[in-house]
Each structure stands twice: as structure tokens, then as C-alpha cells.
């Protein structure tokens, strides 16, 4: 978001999505963890207040299987239902209508995929789904490619957060196109959140230094050898990147510039 940083009267930096304020700028996924306990521990270590969840069929033959809501309290954390696995606008809209009924809230993450190998978004279907969802009163955070033109379309339509990918979902390749991410940040007035592709803490810091409002990640934490430790690393990286952005980095120079005074040399 290319506006003056959100510093409240108390001098505190906060993050606002769809009218709600958050302290943490890190959003984490809940997939791929060994078990719910590990997931809950990583969540605490990450400091995240928003977490993405998927919507899937219940196991009708074994209704007593543990459920995510038994381990992570939806009253304490903001559950952000996603449409992962949807390849058409219709499937995505249908999924989120169910999510709204299951959860009772309007804030959702829209992603409509276009290709199984790259999990790249299908932007035509994404635009169509976003239009329908906004019409039905959803607050739409939208996963998109890093094309500033598409990002602008989605923002003008009324999406409450623009979430370009850094690299393919689950790849851990880091920010592949900082120029485009920066362009999107500069032109966008709603929060910009890098969604997908972060691999390690420095990637998250780079996203925040580019001026992104937040970072969304799943695999980077869940598939780390020690997810809880990586969750804490990501928390610190997002905070460090945000502070560096607010501090304003020094100008890059072509040659050396001594740090000690030249006057008084013996």
C-alpha cells in the first residue's frame, strides 16, 4: 500500500484489512503440518493473527475425527477460508459460499488456479469470481499474478487486499520479480500481501522492505525441519523488513564511502 505508513496516535504500527486492525503482518497457512499440535505451536511462534484454511468434505463415515477448530480457536484467530484447488470461478464461488455458512464471516481468500504444474492463477476466472463474490457481499483478498494491470483491475473492482505471488505456490523460490511487486505496491491503496513462493526468512524481509503490507506463507514454515523455529524466524523477518521499510534505507552507491572520518589521520 503506497500511502503514509499506518502509525496510530500512540506511534504504533498496525495493519488493517477490511476494517479490522492487526498487530502481526504475517498470515500463515495451516496445510502440510505433521499434526494439529505442531500447527498450533507454529501459529503461536509466528505471532500471526490470521490463518488460511481450506474447505473440504467432512468424513461422514468417521465423524469423530479431530477437526482443526478443536485445536485453533476461530474466535481467537481470524480464519481466512481459501479456494485452493478450484480451477473455475463457479467452484471458487460455491466453495466460499459454503465457507461463509460454516464460519459466519465475509472475509475470504480467493484463488482460482489455471495450471496444475505451476499453480499459476487463472486471472480471467479470478476476475469473474471476484466480481460475483463482491456482489454477494464478500470481503475478497485475492491471490493474483504479479501483473500491475491485473492488480489494478482487482483493486478497482473492490477487493480488500491484493496478493501477488512471489514465486509458484510451495516452491520456496523467493521474490522472483521485485520490480513488479514494487510497482504493485506503489499503485495500490489497499493492503498488498505477498502470497506464495516465500522460502526462508530473508524472502519475507525482502517482501516487507519492498513496501508490502504483509506476507502470507504456508510451506516455508510447515516444511521447515523445525516449523516452530521457522515460524519465529518469519515473525522476526516480517518485523525487521517492515521496520527497515519505515526507516528508509540508505541510497545505493557505485563506490565505497568510508565510515570513519578522513580528517585527523596520522
Amino acid at each position: 500500500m503506497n500511502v503514509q505508513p499506518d502509525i496510530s496516535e500512540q506511534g504504533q504500527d498496525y495493519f488493517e484489512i477490511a476494517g479490522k486492525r492487526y498487530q502481526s503482518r504475517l498470515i500463515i497457512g495451516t496445510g502440510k503440518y505433521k499434526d494439529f499440535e505442531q500447527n498450533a505451536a507454529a501459529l503461536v511462534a509466528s505471532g500471526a493473527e490470521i490463518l488460511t484454511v481450506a474447505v473440504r468434505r467432512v468424513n461422514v463415515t468417521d465423524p469423530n475425527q479431530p477437526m482443526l477448530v478443536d485445536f485453533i480457536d476461530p474466535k481467537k484467530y481470524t480464519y481466512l477460508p481459501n479456494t485452493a484447488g478450484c480451477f473455475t470461478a463457479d467452484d471458487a464461488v460455491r466453495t466460499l459460499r459454503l465457507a461463509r455458512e460454516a464460519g459466519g464471516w465475509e472475509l475470504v481468500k480467493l484463488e482460482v488456479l489455471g495450471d496444475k504444474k505451476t499453480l499459476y492463477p487463472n486471472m480471467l476466472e479470478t476476475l469473474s469470481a471476484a466480481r460475483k463474490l463482491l456482489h454477494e457481499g464478500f470481503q475478497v483478498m485475492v491471490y493474483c499474478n504479479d501483473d500491475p494491470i491485473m492488480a489494478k483491475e482487482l483493486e478497482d473492482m473492490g477487493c480488500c487486499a491484493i496478493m501477488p505471488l512471489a514465486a509458484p505456490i510451495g516452491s520456496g523460490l523467493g521474490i522472483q520479480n521485485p520490480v513488479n511487486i514494487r510497482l504493485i505496491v506503489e499503485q495500490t491503496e489497499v493492503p498488498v500481501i505477498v502470497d506464495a513462493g516465500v522460502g526462508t526468512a530473508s524472502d519475507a524481509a525482502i517482501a516487507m522492505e519492498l513496501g508490502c503490507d504483509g506476507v502470507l506463507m504456508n510451506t516455508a514454515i510447515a516444511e521447515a525441519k523445525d516449523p516452530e523455529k521457522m515460524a519465529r524466524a518469519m515473525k522476526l523477518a516480517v518485523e525487521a523488513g517492515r521496520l527497515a521499510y519505515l526507516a528508509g534505507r540508505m541510497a545505493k552507491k557505485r563506490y565505497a564511502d568510508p565510515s570513519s572520518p578522513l580528517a585527523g589521520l596520522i
Partner: protein
Amino acid sequence: MEVTINGERHGIDGPVSVHGLLRQLGLDARKIAVEHNLEIVPRSTYRDIAVKDGDRLEIVHFVGGG
């Protein structure tokens, strides 16, 4: 009667409401959402919506995902 739940045929005791069906299945209505013949069933209407022979239902919940 027979209904399709999450893509599979199930024999259930009917006539029954959505509320009654969830009870038969042993599911906690607070943790799920139901789609009945492609229409979302608002939780407040579970007792009013009748499930009939041949109906198609989707029953979903939140699971881990990114």
C-alpha cells in the same frame, strides 16, 4: 431412502430434516456447512429443510490449507 452425501450414496432413515440427518450422521452442526441440491442451507433453517429420496448433499468443514 437413499441420498448422495459428499458424492457417495447413503441409506438413511426418512423423512428427515437437515437437522435430523446431521444427528443421524453424528456431526456437530456448529463446525460444518451444508449444501442441499446445490443450494446453501442456512444454519437457522436446518430444522425446516426436508431431505428427500435422491437428494444430493455436500457437507464441508475447515481443514488445514495454505
